[in-house]
């Protein structure tokens, strides 16, 4: 059994037993049974496994556990509580405004890529609360969607940012 190692997962100190060289993705989805970060390529090419590490989007499939020890890992599951913290809400909402916009726009098809889409768009909105359409596209360009839901996704991100949700 590996020695005790821990990181902050969605605001909670979490100890895990996986070997230190295990990619974070397998720690999250197997040992911790999370469903947000998920396998897509294992090659840092698609964005399926994205999480926020100290607020920055990283690919969990190529990030070893050893690189996140003691640090702040935020997965899709922890975005509503992160939003509540930053917005100073007393209660954690069921969805962040971005997730609500995605549902309202019915942007999703299979939805498998939306873990990465939501993580990356959250990072964008945290750094740039009112992005232009070009900025949204640039930020999300490293995230693939095979179902071709980009137009609805762009509308949803702009809507969540208060830009009205219409394409320019």
């Amino acid at each position, binding site marked *: 059994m590996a020695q005790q190692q821990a990181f902050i997962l969605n605001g909670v100190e979490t100890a895990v037993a*996986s*070997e230190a060289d*295990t*990619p974070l993705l*397998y720690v999250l*989805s*197997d040992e911790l049974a999370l*469903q*947000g970060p*998920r*396998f*897509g*390529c*294992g*090659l840092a*090419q*698609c964005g*399926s496994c994205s999480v926020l590490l100290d607020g920055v989007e990283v690919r969990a499939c190529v990030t070893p556990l050893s690189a996140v020890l003691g640090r702040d890992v935020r*997965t*899709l*599951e922890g975005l509503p509580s992160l939003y509540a913290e930053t917005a100073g809400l007393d209660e954690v909402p*069921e*969805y962040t405004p971005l*997730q*609500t916009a*995605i*549902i*309202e*726009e*019915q942007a*999703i*098809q*299979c*939805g*498998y*890529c*939306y*873990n990465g889409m*939501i993580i990356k768009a959250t990072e964008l909105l945290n750094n740039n609360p009112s992005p232009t359409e070009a900025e949204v*596209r*640039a930020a*999300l*360009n490293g*995230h*693939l*969607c*095979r*179902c*071709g*839901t*980009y*137009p*609805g*996704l*762009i*509308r949803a991100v702009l809507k969540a940012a208060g830009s009205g*949700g*219409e*394409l320019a």
Partner: protein
Amino acid sequence: MKTRAVVSLSRRDLLKAGGALVVTFPFAPMLFAQSRQAQPGPPDANSIDSWIAIHSDNTATIYIGFAELGQGCSTALLQFAAEELDMDMQQLRTVGLDTHVTPNQGGTYSSSAMRRGGPQVQRAAAEARQALLSMAAEQLAEPVENLSVDKGVVFIRGSNNPALRYGDLVGDRQFNITFTGSAPLKDPASYRVVASPLPRHDIPLKAKGTYPYMQHQRLPGMLHGRIVRPPGQSAYRHGIQLVSLDESSIDGIDARAVVKGNFVGVVAQREWDAVRAAAVLQVEWDLPATLPGNDNLFSRMQAAPTNDRIARDEGDVSLFDTAAVKSVFSATGPYQAHVPFAPNCALADVTENSALVLCSTQDVYGTRNNIAGLLGLEPAQVRVQYHEGAGTFGHSCWDDVAQAAAVMSQHVGAPVRVQFMRADEHGWDTYGPAHIGRMQASADAQGKLLTYEYEGWQHHWSLVDTTLQTANGVAASEWPAMAAQQINPLVLGGMYNIPNIKLLNHHVDGLDYLKGAWLRSPLDLSFTFVSEQCIDDLAWQLGQDPCEFRRRNIRDDRWLGVLDAAAQAAGWQSGPAAANLNNDDIVRGRGIGLGTHLASWGGAVADIEVNKRTGQVRILHLYGAIDAGLTVNPSNVENQITGQLVQTASRMLLEEVLFDQYSVTSTDWNSYPILRIMDCPQITPVIVQRKNEPPMGAGEEVMAAAAAAIANAFFDATGKRMTMYPFTPARVLQALA
């Protein structure tokens, strides 16, 4: 007069039409509730109980035999049930596809969910309502005509007091009545639920991250498995030939190899160990030169002996020789891959006399037969459950991965979960087959089509998946001839009145090529890439507007409807193509096209930009119109059109499976790129709603039109025609040279 309502729904209209889009869907967590005794299916399709269960709490479960592929069909099919039962969507739920639970409605193919499944669910619901009302009439001693139903509550006409509820009549008991299909259906004019853009019930869970994908399924005592193969496939006939394997190469890892015939895999307690072991296991393969490589693909196909069949032959195509205007055009389409965003995954638990298999098949009963054959079990001993994975768009590797999990589970005597890695899915896909099309067509001086001749070369789909081929030594073979793998008379000239037409199919034996299968709108993009460019060329030679030329030759109202809808949405300006050629580096063009798959009608307009210096093509805007008869859920169909247009842009600009003489070399997103968000065009989906026509497919029927529109836009911009796609900079520069 036929109704032809061209409905262009903007997002805002949608919101109005659908009322407030709810953010929570109260019944979603019960989506996969299995509420009845499971036993080997299929359940008797002639019994109403196989389709519908009414519960004591006045809710109902609808058993649907179609896979939710992210296209929203489970929501749309429930709309039919809610309509005919006079219940609310909130009172209905459905269950996951399962050979022990759900009826056999055939696979979810060819946009069949609405076309085949819609009427079945609708009739079953109508019959259940009829039975419920006659029970109510008896209990209340009132004639049926005096009863009405709202949200599953029965009222006696003239009274506002509920008399009784469906749940009181049969609550959780069986109907025990035969499904005759004879109960009268609602008048489409009275639809409340059908034809409304209701929000999909799976979306909130998917946004939240709690939707249970196939990749999230686990079984107690389960091991993680990975397959070990060469990184890309060789010729189908060759399969995989294992020479030697050195198991000591994974000694340092807590994993072991599983070998059966030429099938190689690894299993491990921990997933990362399985991934590492598969990567480092030393295996030697026999890899002779079995493939033509991309460069010699089409010459080999054209030189091959073929099995020929005439698909359509009317009039006298030799009139071409003396026609006023003639066009001769040949072009090719590449192999293209399904490559779902997440590679396929499956979980199998095989014992001596049973097998449970969880996977993302589009056809649970078909997969059950495959697995039974693979394992030497009877179909009734095998239970297959469908769990949604990433959007698949046809036959990706779901059967192969399910078989791999079953083989490994049988071998090690424990449940095994196999996740294909990226190269397994990219490199071992059953690709959409390559195509060669050769066409000549002619028109009279007024612009009436006179002759149309088309010859097409392609191979069929692969019948035996790689796991079955390697583990059991079953020889490669192809599917028998069927419509979607041959030249398609609906797409090839079927939209026009042509007095003299001949379509000739050349079937090339596929065993010496890559594995093939249906990829969304099978072959149609390649067909219209040839045909609609040739038609466009006739219009151009006549100096006529390409839209007007098509209108003049159009076959019927349905085709005219989608042509006009797309043109109108795009604000089409009449005039001949390529009339504004100039010497600028960056030029723009607009094109139009028609096409479909095996049913429904599609029309599209494309705006593109070509950089003549770099060869870079950008697609700026795609407009796509579909007439799918009755559109049950316009919001779903709008999303489907959007997805089809974006995917068509990707397929026309970027997608081509690369291979040398030895194997496929497109094994990841770098070697087989797809469209990224920066390059995503503006999209305008248009629905031609026809409430009185039967519902048809809307999941693939505008792609062929859009492919043609893009090709024709290239000509409008440059005065040159592309004869190969995808439009890579090298090909574009060659065409312009």
